[in-house]
């Protein structure tokens, strides 16, 4: 093989490595870049119309009905409900998205949880939710114990800091001095760009 051919092959391999490396970086950046999130009220917002059980912790999950990442967040929520022994009420706040949101349904185990269609994003704004999969957890006393996402990256299921933080907050629900935990949230934006 001549030196030209060797050089051409080396160039092709280097260009290929560069292209593949760029693609891998794009996956990594996309999957690990968190979505936007606002601040949640430290106490359950009085203006909220969402149902709340005064004798139990209330977990509100904001979902985009069309976002592929939502299923990972809901799967993690299911893990939390299975793992905790605390009394917990789950509420889904469904953004209209592109499909309208009316057809979105949670998994069978959470089918009895209330679903609220948040057409004007009023509830989302009250709880500082801007990204699908955003979760807020308030204890029975109405104190904020967690705000953020419960997946490790975009669309990925599996144990992660958010899930552990929610489970920790549920286990420590009686401790009034505990500060609210938070975690990055990964998913589609709930609202269009202004």
């Amino acid at each position, binding site marked *: 093989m001549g030196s030209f051919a060797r050089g051409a*092959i080396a160039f*092709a*391999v280097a260009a*290929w490595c560069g*292209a*593949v490396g760029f*693609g*891998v970086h*794009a*996956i*990594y950046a*996309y*999957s*690990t870049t968190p979505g936007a999130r606002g601040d949640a009220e430290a106490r359950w917002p009085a203006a909220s119309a969402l149902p709340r059980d005064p004798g139990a912790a209330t977990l509100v999950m904001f979902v*985009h009905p*069309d*976002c*592929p990442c939502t299923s*990972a967040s809901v799967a993690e929520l299911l893990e939390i409900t299975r793992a905790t022994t605390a009394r917990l009420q789950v509420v889904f706040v469904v*953004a*209209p*998205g*592109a499909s309208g949101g009316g057809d979105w349904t949670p998994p069978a185990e959470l089918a009895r949880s209330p679903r609220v269609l948040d057409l004007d994003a009023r509830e989302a704004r009250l709880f500082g939710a801007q990204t*699908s999969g955003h979760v807020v957890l308030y204890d029975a006393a109405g104190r904020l114990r967690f705000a953020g996402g419960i997946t*490790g*990256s975009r*669309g*990925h*299921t*599996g*144990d*992660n*800091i958010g899930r552990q933080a929610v489970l920790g907050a549920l286990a420590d629900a009686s401790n009034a001095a505990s500060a609210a935990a938070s975690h990055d949230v990964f998913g*589609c*934006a*709930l*609202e*269009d*760009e202004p």
Partner: protein
Amino acid sequence: MTERARAAELLVDARERVYARTSRMFLGLFVGQWLFAIALAAVTSPYAFEGSTRSVHLHLQLAIFLGGAINVLPCALLVARPSWWLTRHCVAAVQMLWSALLIVLTGGRIETHFHVFGSLAFIAFYRDWKLLVTATIVVSIDHLARGVWWPDSVYGIANPEWWRFLEHAAWVTFEDVVLVWGCVRGVSDLRETADRTAEIEHAKGRVVAIVDERTRELRASIEQLARAKKLESIGRLAAGVAHEINTPIQFVGDSIDFVGHAVGELVAAASRRRDAFAGVDDLEFVLAELPRALARAGEGVERVASIVRSMKVFAHPDRTEMAHVDLNAAIESTTVIARNEYRYVADLELQLGELPPVCCHVGEINQVVLNMVVNAAHAIESVVGASGSRGRIVVATFRDRGDACIDITDTGAGIPADLRDKVFDPFFTTKPAGKGTGQGLAMAHAVVVEKHRGSLSFDSELGAGTTFHIRIPVVEQLEVAA
């Protein structure tokens, strides 16, 4: 080519075929994986959303473009150089990248990790254990890097222990051990097959060579038989002619003897009564030349008679079985027959010693001696050419223990060292076309060694000449004859 070299060549061919076949499979697999990845992304994550605005999901874009980019290099190599070592290692590395990409596209599902193990098995189809090392290194680097920067994409948890990549690599290595063993066994099987094939080919080659040799010998025998039959016919004819000539020659000779005596007496009487022959011209010349002319006629007739007797002895057309013969007499006759071959270039000297009767096919021995003498004449002719100088041929017989020996020596050019192994090979000759068939010495060897259980050898000195030694067992042949 030796059997071992052929086996090595066959092994290389077999491995090349395995490489090419597996490369074709991977070409299809890469295209299939690409299409599968696109379909998977299109089904599970076709769009990303921002409120009500949708855009093509990055997973789908990456399935199309990154998947395509990943495939470009190996597919190009698979098409251009399917058996090249770099192609194979590139395939091994890229197949592992496909595992990583599919794991990402399925949201880090632990089940997708089985693609890694399946891929290793596919790579093992190459029967090249080194490719498994490449694949394992790529998997380990992928796990190590993602374990550091994006652990939940590979381990499913956010804070894995630092050694988790080793755990995954260990399971991969576990499969590697099995697959490496399979590769080594596979190559071993290929080697055994190559060895057996080479052995069979070699044996077949030997059989073909033997068949060729036997065919050549058979053809030579057929030609020899045809020639023998021709010679036999000529011999029979010659014997008949000789017999027919013999009787008239005898009475011609007897008559010349009688005329010689009568003329002697007449010449003596005429010398005493010259006046009675006064009318004869050149009386003195006639009286002097008449006895001489009759003497020359007598010598000529005697010589014709000698040749006729030699022809009768040489030919022996009806003698097909062995018989006790006087070898010296046979040799004398043969040299008479051969005289025309050497008379212009050499003098022939017979040194015939005491020999007992030898049981042999005398016609064939005569033919051997004739061939040797003719060869000697040709060898001398090649040296003296038209120079006018003459060589020397000596035919000597003697008894050495139980053998009757015939040595035929010439003062020709001698036989070059590199040709000495070939002189008894059928059809080998250095004579110009038309002068020699290359069968004379082969026939001589067959007659002396195989038919008479004797030996035929030669000593030769380049530039000095050659001596052929013929030995025919006397006692043994007698026992055989008995």
